[in-house]
C-alpha cells in the first residue's frame, strides 16, 4: 500500500512539474532532449505487439522498438497507455510525445497525425473457427458474419474505403453479410472461439495477433484456423501529434533512428523474436 501511495505522490508531483514546464519556444526535439525522457503511448491490447507480460509489465515488439529508439537518442522512455481512440484522435496536448502502437498511416489519420517512415509491414488475415467445414476460401465468406475491431484499417478494408499512400490494395469482390465491430481485436477472437457461427463466422485481424491467439490464447490455444493468404500488407509507422508546433526536427531524428535500426538488422531481430517471422520490408 505504501508503495502505491508513494508512486501516486510521485505522479502528482510529476503533474505539477509538467504543468509548470512547456513555456520554452524551442523545437519539440529540443524539449524532449531537455527533459531527457520521451513519453511514448502504446495500446496494451495487442499481443505480441504490445501487452502485459506475466509480471504485469509492458512488453512486445512495439515496446522493444520504443526502448531501442530512446536508447539510440540517449534518453529515457516512459510509457502511457490511453485508449486507442484517444491516440488516433490526435491533439495529445503534450501528454505524450510519440505513438509507437502499430499504426497504419491512413489518409484520415494524416489529418491529425504526422507519420515516420514505416518500421514494419503487417499482413491482414482472415480466420475461421477450426470446426467449420463449409468455408474453404476467402470468397466463401460472402454473406457471413465477420468480426473486426472498430476504427482500424481492417474495418476500412472490409468497407472498401481504405487509402494508404504508396500501398496497393485490392478489395474483395464480395460483401460480408454482417460486419460486427468490436472495441479491440481480442474481443472478436474470443467471440469466434465461443463456437462456429455462434456469434461470428470469421474474424479479420493482423496475422500476428491471430497467430498469438492460436498459440497461447483462450487457456490452451484458441480454436481458430487461418483462412487463405493475407488480404493485404500495410505499412506501420510511428505517429506524432500534428497540432504540436515545430515537430519536424523530431520527425527527422526518428526517421534517422529507424534507418539505423534497419541497417544493423535490429528490426529483423526483434521481428523474429516477437512474431517468429521477418515482417521487415527491404528498404
Amino acid at each position: 500500500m505504501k508503495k502505491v501511495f508513494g508512486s501516486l505522490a510521485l505522479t502528482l508531483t510529476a503533474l505539477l512539474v509538467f504543468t509548470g514546464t512547456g513555456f520554452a519556444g524551442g523545437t519539440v526535439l529540443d524539449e524532449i532532449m531537455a527533459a531527457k525522457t520521451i513519453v511514448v503511448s502504446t495500446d496494451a491490447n495487442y499481443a505480441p505487439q504490445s501487452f502485459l507480460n506475466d509480471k504485469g509489465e509492458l512488453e512486445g515488439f512495439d515496446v522493444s522498438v520504443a526502448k531501442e529508439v530512446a536508447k539510440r537518442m540517449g534518453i529515457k522512455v516512459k510509457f502511457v497507455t490511453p485508449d486507442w481512440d484517444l491516440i488516433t484522435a490526435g491533439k495529445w496536448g503534450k501528454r505524450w510525445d510519440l505513438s509507437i502502437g502499430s499504426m497504419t498511416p491512413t489518409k484520415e489519420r494524416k489529418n491529425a497525425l504526422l507519420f515516420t517512415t514505416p518500421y514494419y509491414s503487417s499482413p491482414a488475415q482472415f480466420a475461421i473457427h477450426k470446426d467449420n467445414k463449409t468455408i474453404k476460401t476467402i470468397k466463401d465468406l460472402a454473406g457471413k458474419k465477420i468480426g473486426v475491431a472498430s476504427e482500424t484499417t481492417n474495418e476500412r478494408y472490409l468497407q472498401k474505403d481504405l487509402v494508404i499512400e504508396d500501398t496497393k490494395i485490392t478489395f474483395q469482390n464480395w460483401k460480408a453479410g454482417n460486419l460486427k465491430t468490436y472495441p479491440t481485436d481480442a474481443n472478436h477472437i474470443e467471440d469466434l472461439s465461443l463456437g462456429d457461427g455462434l456469434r461470428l463466422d470469421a474474424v479479420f485481424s493482423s496475422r500476428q495477433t491471430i497467430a498469438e491467439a492460436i498459440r497461447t490464447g483462450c487457456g490452451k490455444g484458441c480454436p481458430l484456423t487461418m483462412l487463405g493468404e493475407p488480404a493485404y500488407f500495410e505499412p506501420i509507422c510511428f505517429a506524432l501529434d500534428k497540432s504540436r508546433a515545430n515537430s519536424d526536427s523530431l520527425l527527422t531524428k526518428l526517421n534517422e533512428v529507424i534507418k539505423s535500426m534497419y541497417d544493423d538488422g535490429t528490426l529483423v531481430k526483434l521481428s523474429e523474436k516477437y512474431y517468429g517471422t521477418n515482417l521487415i520490408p527491404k528498404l
Partner: protein
Amino acid sequence: MNGDTLDPTLSSIPPEAERVLAQNINQQKKYKRKLIISFIVLGILMITTLIVIGLDFKFMAKWLPFILAGGGYTILVSILAISLACILSVIGALGRLSKNPVINSIATAYVSLIRGTPLLVQIYMWYLALPQIGLALEGLGLTGIQSLFTLHAIPAGILALGVCYGAYMTETVRAGIQSIKIGQTEAAKALGMTSGQTMKRVIFPQAMRVIIPPVSNEFIAMVKDSAMVSLMGVWEMTYRAMKVGRRHFQSLEMLVMVAMIYWMMCIVLQYFQEKIEEHMARGDRRM
C-alpha cells in the same frame, strides 16, 4: 422493596404475555437461521455456476495480486472525487436555494447540464475538450495556458467524477436543507440570528442528518464508476483486468474476478454506511 419483587421484569409481565414474547423471540431466531441458510445456498449456487461454465481458476488466482494492486487508484480516485463532490454539492445547493437570479441560474444550469449528459461523455470532454480550450486561449495571446488546461488522466478522472456526482448530490443537499421545518428558521430569526448564522448553526447541522446516508450511498456508486478512468489509461483494477484478459484471450475470467473484487469492496462500504445511518438516526430514536 422486599425480596419477591427484586426482579421487576418477572413480576410486571403476566405469564401469558411472557409466552407470547418467548414465541416472538423464537420466531425471530428461526427467521435468522433460515435467512443464513438461504444465503449459503445462494452462495453455493453461484460458485457452482462459475465452476460449470468452466472458468480457469488457476489463471484467475495467478493474476489476483496484479489486479488488486490497482485498488489503490480506485480508492484514491473515489475518495478525492467524493470530497470534491461534497464541496460542489453544498455550493450548488445554496445556489439552488439562493434568491439571487444569477447565482440561482448558474446552479440550476450546472445541475441540469451535468445530470442530462452521460458520465462517459463527460470524461471524454474533460480529457479531450479542455486542451482545445487551452489552445484557443493561447491563440488569443495567453501563452503557456494550454499546459494548465491539459489534464493528465488521474486529475481529469477526479474532476469528471467529482463534478458529475456533485450535481446529483446538489439535489440531495437541497432536499436535506428544505426538509428542516420553517419554524426552525423563524425561531432563529426571533433570536436575532442573521440568515448566514441560521444556515450555519441551525439548519445545516440538522440537515446533515438527512444528507449523510444518501451521500454514502453515492460513494458506493462512485467506487464502481471510477472504472471509467481506465479509458484514459489509469492502471486501476478494471484496466488491469481488461488488458490481462485480452492478452490471454480470457476476458471472462478477468471480468468475473474484477466484479467480485468490486463487490467485496462495496460490502465493506455498505457495512460502514449502515453504521453511519444508525449513528445519524440516534436523535430520532431518543425522541
